[in-house]
């Protein structure tokens, strides 16, 4: 169990580690007790505040499930619109023609530099000024628009990085058998790049799911986070309980996706048939790259 940083431990190191463990437990226990005391003195831990979630299905049916549905709806539509758009702009940035390359790059860099929240607010206002949408649809559209504009540009970078990871021999071989540029991209490069990009795309879904919460907090789009306020008001100011339940749902959903992404990444790295190139999911998921494609491009040597 030794690592780069420390050797297999001898008796003294083991004793020291036990000491550190005890100290850490003491500090952690102090923090936990402080939190518990704070919560208890505000009556947030009383069973009455938590009871609704465990004894009846009413809060789930009235508040959580509709909110969850809206979250999923917004995230799903944002993803299926952003994916092809991102692929288009990603390929556009790799084009040999300046008139395609430059505008694609400008659009991608522009929408990556602007906060999603601002895009959503602008989209919402634009829809209310220039269209006749009823408010409920308008909010959904505004949230999806904001998410699409931002995530399409991030996905464009992922697509570009994915195609750039492929060995140049692939293009040469395709040229040698007389394929045109479009054919090379469609039949040789893209299918291979898609497997390399899959983990990064799955991690981007986590970012999309997380960003739907902006719609609830800023535009009052009725998604999962927005269900906290009415729920807390309805069950006697059980704010902490409501937030806990909501947070657990988000964590469960996103943790599943994150784990799936890293499983996929490891599996693809081990796969013998592919080129072994994988666009890494990066340290965080919602980290942007400005300028060079520094999305962890791996040449497959590292395991």
């Amino acid at each position: 169990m030794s690592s780069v940083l420390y050797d297999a431990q001898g008796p003294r190191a083991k004793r020291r580690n036990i000491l550190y463990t005890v100290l850490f437990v003491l500090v952690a226990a102090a923090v936990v007790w402080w939190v518990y005391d704070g919560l208890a003195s505000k009556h947030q831990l009383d069973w009455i505040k938590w009871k609704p979630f465990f004894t009846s299905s009413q809060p789930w049916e009235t508040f959580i499930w509709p909110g969850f549905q809206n979250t999923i709806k917004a995230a799903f539509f944002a993803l299926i619109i952003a994916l092809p758009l991102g692929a288009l702009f990603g390929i556009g940035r790799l084009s040999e023609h300046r008139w395609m390359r430059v505008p694609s790059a400008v659009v991608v860099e522009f929408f990556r530099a602007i906060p999603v929240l601002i895009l959503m607010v602008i989209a919402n206002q634009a829809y209310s000024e220039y269209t006749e949408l009823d408010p409920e649809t308008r909010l959904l559209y505004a949230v999806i628009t904001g998410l699409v504009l931002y995530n399409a540009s991030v996905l464009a970078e992922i697509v570009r990085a994915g195609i750039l990871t492929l060995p140049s021999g692939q293009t040469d071989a395709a040229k040698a058998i007389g394929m045109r540029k479009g054919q090379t991209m469609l039949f040789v490069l893209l299918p291979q790049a898609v497997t390399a990009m899959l983990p990064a795309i799955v991690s981007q879904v986590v970012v999309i799911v997380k960003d739907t919460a902006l719609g609830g907090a800023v535009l009052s789009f009725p998604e999962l986070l927005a269900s906290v306020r009415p729920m807390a008001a309805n069950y006697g100011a059980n704010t902490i309980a409501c937030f806990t339940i909501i947070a657990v749902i988000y964590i469960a959903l996103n943790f599943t996706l994150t784990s799936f992404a890293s499983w996929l990444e490891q599996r693809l790295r081990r796969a013998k048939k592919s080129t072994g190139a994988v666009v890494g999911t990066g340290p965080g998921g919602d980290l942007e790259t400005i300028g060079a494609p520094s999305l962890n491009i791996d040449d497959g040597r590292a395991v």
Partner: protein
Amino acid sequence: MFDFLDGYDLLGAFWVTVQLTVYSALGSLIWGTLLAGMKVSPVPLMRGFATGYVNVVRNIPLTVIIVFSSLGLYSTLNISLGASDITDVNFRLAVLALSAYTAAFVCEALRSGINTVPVGQAEAARALGLSFTQVLRLIILPQAFRSVVNPLSNVLIALTKNTTVASAIGVMEASYLMKGMIENEAQLILISAVFAFGFIVLTLPTGLILGWVSKKVAVKR
């Protein structure tokens, strides 16, 4: 053409954005480094804590954390972080929430930086008799920091944009002002352009400068 800006404190709002970014960046750098140290430490419990923290925090939307800091910490538990008026309270809560969230990403970036240091260096350091803390502090972290300038600059850019979420709890930064402005003025496109430009001015140089720094300080191997 720009007379719709009269009566709005545009620079003041962006100044709040910058302040939020700087304070949260410092907070998350300190907490993130501690977490990274725990994550590679020989004490299993600390490793477990750091792993758990990163996995939990990065899977919760930042918006939930920030709204919780206002509704949960302040309104319910009366934690005001030593501030007396509501503007200060919201600002400090936003810094706390942004730091807690961003630290998870700083930790992940640093840990990947630690992996770039060749094994031989740590082995050599241990052969000289340095302890874990000394190896980490004198040999590994200085090199790790130099190799993660680029990922960290991405975290910083994401943080700059994430500060807009603080408007959800009433911190009067740029996006808060914009929301008010486009509701009151009939200048949607111009106002959007001004704020988009503002954020590009904040984020683009960060990326360019830190990209240059990262090339300059990178350890050539």
